[in-house]
């Protein structure tokens, strides 16, 4: 995992979140379309500005010159309208073909369900042929070079899934299910965030897409399917005991323990994730402690309450969380 992160840093696209920095086929198609239309539009604008300046200058000193006849003006204006129609038709056709090229193909290799909630992303990898379903949060791993179908749902209000370096956005609408083609051409970590206003912490609802070589991806899948590791060091072991005794377990699941709450993110492998609290903080023991100690200051209004803990308990629970690789 550490190796992968270093690799991503080297590839120069760690946390890339820009439509102008595409690393997946759909985003590349979109960037081409964007650049084409913007360039054409810039030319049109310049042309209109030239006409405006000429018209203003001409009129200023044109007291004696012969006036342009209405007939010639009519012809010029008609020609300009005709050109407008042609350009618009061209742009419509270009966007039609781009739409086709970013559609979700029948042959998508993997389907991952993303269920947005205020204000985090629940990610569900369905099991098949006896392999169990598992969940993670705010982090989606995909194999590079493959078409991935995301099935997008919402548990509460409308959200929008947007990882601009990989694909355009798609809303997650309660009561409906949408899908989106995701594809990364290069390994790396691609950042995205919710794009539809969804309440108090709309600003802090990021998601990381980790694209990795198929072999790394397979390894990741295997490790995520496994239940949580039993804590080896004594701090983490006391942390687990405290976690299970406190209200934490009522909202969170740690597979392999009695913690089976489903309100909050599944924490079975939280230590393996890049960030906590939907991209708010990097996952370190310190940030975990800070978050658990006072989630309402770091992300005001989020649904995690402050659970009163002694400083020892806080340390231990943080150690336990960090150990859940």
């Amino acid at each position, binding site marked *: 995992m550490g190796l992968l992160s270093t690799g991503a840093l080297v590839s120069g696209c760690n946390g890339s979140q*820009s439509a102008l920095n595409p690393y997946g086929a759909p985003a590349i198609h979109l960037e081409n379309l964007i650049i084409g239309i*913007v360039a054409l539009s810039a030319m049109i604008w310049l042309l209109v500005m030239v*006409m405006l300046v000429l018209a203003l200058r001409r009129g200023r000193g044109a*007291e004696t010159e012969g006036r342009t006849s209405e007939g010639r003006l009519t012809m010029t204006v008609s020609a300009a309208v005709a050109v407008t129609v042609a350009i618009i038709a061209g742009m419509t056709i270009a966007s039609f073909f781009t739409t086709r090229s970013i559609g979700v193909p029948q042959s998508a290799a993997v389907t991952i369900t993303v269920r947005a909630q205020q204000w985090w992303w629940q990610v569900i990898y369905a099991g098949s042929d006896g392999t169990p379903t598992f969940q993670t949060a705010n982090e989606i791993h995909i194999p590079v070079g493959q078409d991935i179908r995301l099935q997008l749902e919402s548990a509460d209000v409308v959200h929008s899934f947007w990882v601009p370096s990989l694909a355009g956005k798609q809303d997650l609408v309660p009561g409906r299910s949408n899908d989106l083609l995701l594809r990364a051409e290069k390994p790396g970590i691609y950042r995205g965030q919710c794009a539809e206003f969804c309440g108090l912490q709309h600003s802090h609802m990021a998601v990381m897409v980790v694209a990795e070589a198929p072999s790394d991806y397979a390894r990741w899948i295997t490790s995520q399917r496994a239940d949580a590791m039993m804590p080896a060091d004594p701090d983490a072991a006391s942390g687990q005991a405290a976690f299970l005794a406190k209200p934490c377990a009522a909202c969170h699941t740690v597979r392999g323990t009695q913690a089976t709450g489903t309100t909050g993110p599944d924490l079975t492998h939280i230590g393996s994730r890049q960030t906590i609290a939907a991209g708010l903080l990097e996952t370190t023991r310190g940030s975990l402690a800070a978050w658990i100690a006072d989630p309402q200051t770091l992300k005001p209004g989020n649904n995690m309450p402050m659970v009163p803990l002694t400083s020892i308990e806080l340390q231990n629970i943080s150690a336990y969380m960090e150990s859940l690789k």
Partner: protein
Amino acid sequence: MRAVADREGVRDTGMEAVELDRRLAATWSTPPGLWGALSTVDHKIIGRRYIVTAFVFLALGGVLALLMRLQLAQPEARFVGPDRYNQIFTMHGSNMMFLFAVPVMQAMAIYLVPLMVGTRNIAFPRLNAFSYWMYLAGGLLLWIAFAVDTGPDVGWFAYVPLSGPQYAAGKRADIWAQMITFTEVSALAIAVEIVVTVFKQRAPGMSLDRIPLFVWSMLVTSFLVILAMPAIMIASTSLILDRLVGTHFFNPAEGGDVLLWQHLFWFFGHPEVYIIFLPAVGMVSSIVATFTQRPVFGYLAMVMALIATGVLAFGLWVHHMFVAGLPRLGESFFTASSMAIAVPAGLQIFCWLATIWAGRPIFKTPFLFVIGFIVVFVIGGLTGVMVASVPFDTQVHDTYFVVAHFHYVLVGGAVFPLLGAVYYWFPKLTGRMMSETLGRWSFGLIFSGFNLTFFPMHILGLQGMPRRIYTYQPEMPWSGLNMFISLSGIVLAAGFLLFFIDAIRSARSGPVAPANPWGASTLEWATSSPPPSYNFARLPVIERLEPLSDRSDPLGIVEGLYTDRRELLITGVVEARAQARESSVGSSIWPLLAALATSAMLIWSIFTPWAVVWGSIPIAVALIGWFWPKGDPEDET
């Protein structure tokens, strides 16, 4: 010759000018004092009131924008928390759309349309008074709620379920929904008045092809209001019902649908853009004609473009929902229709360019704002074509690119012409001129401040910055541009401040304006600045599109109207042949009382559905008082 007095009163036939003015003033003037102010039905007084109120809301909305820029200047800033920030951006949008942009355009029409068509008051003057009071009450409701921390926080679009009973506890979303009712009632009332004024009260001879372009634009706008606003009223009513009495329109668990809200909202919301933009188009045409010293090129094409825009406006709403997951084929249709609206928009731009080309431009402040409008609006139109493309939109929807786009369209396309229009019509509104020097400075500051503020937002959007976030993390590459934008916002604000200073100063002590200071050719300039309470001592008869263009050929006039009661002329819809003399009602306190009763019912109904039952009784009383004949000469004859 002596004035003709008959059994019913005194007619103006052959009356001396001084005598005529005295008699008409006695008949038409609003009585002085508080009672007169509260009961007036003079379209000019109400129009001015509306304009001033709308500009107050503009200033308040601007302050909100500055607060947002303060918060966003730096990453993870803590000037404004998420709860207040959400209220602020919701207030900014709702205030600017419902309390500033639409009302200010309609307000200009209330003042100008009766003058431009040559009549003495707007149709349904009491409805006009009622409309203003409703608007004021709606604005006060929204702002007072905000002041006591109950401002809506669900966005100006109030998407369900975030605004629904489950996720928006308290009364904040109800305040939003009911504010909609207030402003839509007032907007619909004005729309009806404008339509009927333009259809039936035009000066004799002002056939359809002699209607000034501003009046055409207001006519089309009024039809857009009439057809679009019922959608938002139904939507906001359904939302209140979902919240208050447990209906399930938007609840997917019980057969409702979340996207139904979005369809209804945008079926109104997109025409709303043209409700704001088309009046501005009319203002631009008026200013261009006057300051190039020739009629606007392509009158018929301009009218057709207005109508085409109005029709197409109803076929575009889905382009606000391109990423909501609708069928792709349908979306492609809406791409085509959204792009198609660029054709009438382009046509109008070309016609203005042709007018400037063939004319002799005079570079006064109103014209500077029109030049600024062309520069800025063309960018907004082109980015509009971009977001009309489904695939393009998937990358920029709900990002700062869209924030940039619609500010280019709404500020560039509507506020620039509006400011130009204020400089242009200020003498007609107040009888005084604004300062040309300050005007140039404020134009310069607003134009440069605007572009410096909003152009970088296009880039931020493409760089992945979503809208409606109260902060962003330091590791995102956005902080530099955001700081730049916030600083530029100060320049823009300074420009507006200068404009307000100029307007207030000039209204008090600007140079006194003659009747037609710009040498313009439409009817409102045929009467004094500001016009007398009766607008025209003698109603004009129109023989050409630009009645004042030829000074050697004076206006024809009408004779035979009564002077001792409020009388105006009804003409045919197409040819504007005179059909009847008609009474116009006088001052009345009942519109204010009706507005108070309606406001009480609407606000009460946020708390209990029974308010609709009990609250209707005072409304009924007020309406009966309003319409019950009082035996005045206007009714008796």
